[in-house]
């Protein structure tokens, strides 16, 4: 009884206390017998910008897609603003998706539509916010990502990779989402355009009260944009009982980490990895992986 009274006293947190807008609770993701994510628990506070880093095949993109219901976790749950998204029906999930924005790796713009129609797509699905016109919103978003209005009648195939990513960002922002997810926003861009995207992400955070999660290999981008960095490690390479999250903290703490695997990734050093790969190739597929953990199938390069 005393505890519950104490809880009642301490539960109403101070207005400044951060509360998680998004949580994953022991989330696992598996395809057949292939384990991609195992018991991954992450809390994301409102307004935070989080970078998910990790080598190819560790399940970063799968993690991101599971957050917005594009993939269903095999076990565990994803809680967004107090709602377990797996328990929502189609209509509630559609309504919830108004609050998400997703910038895909290659923008995923619809080829059959013009840029204007692409950006306006969420408005057509969910309706234009009150007191605004679709055209004004499209123009505003396009200006925010630094694109001229003459791109509006063009097709996605007529734009460069950087322009397509910026259109993807404009489309994701059109409904002013609460949660913005970016899948490798700087991959495949030149260093200048990569930094333009970084700056746009930072400006977006200043302009809107948005919570952002981005998946990246680009350590410069992660350090510059993120408030917090989470490093995922391929499940098939873990020692038994280890968490897949090897690092969870501010960018400044990355350099002082004692985990060799984290520092190796951050510094971009191959280390013994090439020798391992060559050895596994000579032994045949799966040998190295079964050595790491005989319970697991081989890791999948899903990204």
């Amino acid at each position: 009884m005393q505890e519950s009274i104490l809880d009642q006293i301490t539960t109403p947190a101070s207005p400044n206390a951060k509360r998680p807008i998004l949580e994953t609770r022991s989330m696992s993701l598996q395809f057949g017998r292939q384990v991609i994510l195992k018991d991954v628990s992450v809390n994301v506070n409102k307004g935070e910008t989080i970078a998910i880093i990790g080598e190819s095949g560790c399940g970063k993109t799968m993690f991101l897609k599971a957050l917005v219901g594009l993939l269903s976790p095999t076990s565990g749950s994803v809680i967004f603003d107090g709602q377990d998204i797996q328990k929502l029906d189609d209509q509630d999930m559609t309504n919830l998706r108004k609050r998400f924005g997703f910038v895909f790796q290659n923008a995923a713009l619809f080829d059959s539509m013009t840029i204007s129609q692409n950006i306006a797509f969420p408005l057509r699905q969910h309706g234009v916010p009150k007191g605004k016109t679709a055209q004004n919103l499209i123009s505003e978003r396009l200006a925010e990502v630094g694109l001229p209005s003459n791109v509006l009648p063009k097709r996605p195939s007529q734009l460069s990779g950087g322009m397509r990513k910026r259109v993807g960002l404009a489309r994701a922002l059109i409904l002013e989402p609460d949660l913005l997810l970016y899948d490798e926003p700087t991959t495949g861009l030149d260093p200048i355009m990569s930094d333009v995207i970084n700056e746009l992400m930072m400006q977006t955070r200043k302009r809107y009260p948005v919570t952002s999660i981005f998946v990246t290999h680009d350590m410069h981008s992660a350090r510059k944009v993120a408030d917090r960095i989470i490093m995922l490690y391929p499940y098939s390479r873990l020692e038994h009982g280890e968490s897949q999250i090897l690092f969870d903290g501010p960018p400044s703490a990355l350099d002082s980490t004692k985990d060799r695997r984290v520092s190796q990734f951050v510094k971009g050093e191959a280390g013994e990895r090439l020798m391992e790969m060559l050895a596994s190739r000579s032994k045949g597929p799966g040998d190295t992986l079964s050595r790491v953990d005989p319970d697991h199938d081989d890791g999948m390069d899903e990204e």
Partner: protein
Amino acid sequence: MATDPFSNLDSPQSRLLSSLHRFASVWGTVVIDGVSTVGDISIFGWQMILWMFRAKPKRETLMPNFYAVGVLSLPVVALTGTFIGMVLAIQSYHQFKNIGLETFLGAVINMSLVRELGPVLAATMLAGRVGSAMAAVLGTMRVTEQIDALISMGANPIHYLVVPRFLACVLLIPALTIMADFMGIVGGYFYSVIVFGIDHAQYLRNSREFVGSFDLFTGVFKSVFFGATIAVVSCYRGFHCQAGAEGVGRAATAAFVQSFVMILLLDIVLNIFLDAVYFAIWPSGAKLF
């Protein structure tokens, strides 16, 4: 201690067991894959039917598909129909002339066209021209994450992408079938009457006498099922496309091959059914000869 039958691979018994094991494994996998694909396609088709009634499809998604299926397929269907009509005339003329029944050629050609060749050819052309394209487009959308983008923006991809394609195929294939029938009749008439010199009046009279409304209905009725099959199989193949250019290519090929096989299977089943209906309505039997 039990002995492992595979431990001594040199013995004939072990080799036989090993072969049987491989045979069961390979064919077992084929059967399981086949059954699971049929189950998946059925679930996919059922979801599509649910979405057809759950929300009205948008005009902007319907019109481009109606145009691609109806308008753009018309020339190739008409051309195929014309040539098939002519070929039927060429193939049948001498046999019928030998027994003095060349004036019945109109009945044979037109009956074959409206009951069988018109719907099957229109469906085959549609599967090749539209079905493969549907699988390739949807497969590319899957590979380039455009389908994920649709879902993430609150659109249901079955409602947005599959329902309009299904409606276009089902609603417009009867028109394409009638076009194939008509052009086949024109082609057959041209070769029989103009080239072979069969009497015009007798040719038309026999055609009118033996080809009835039920025959035309048979072809059009079957075509609706063919159109539905093409749409469901092709969209399913596109949605389950493997990554990469090769995956898209395989999806397009599989869409055509599987649609074509399904068309032929359905043709048999529907012919048996329609024959039963025909004899139930007209117990005196078939009219021709």
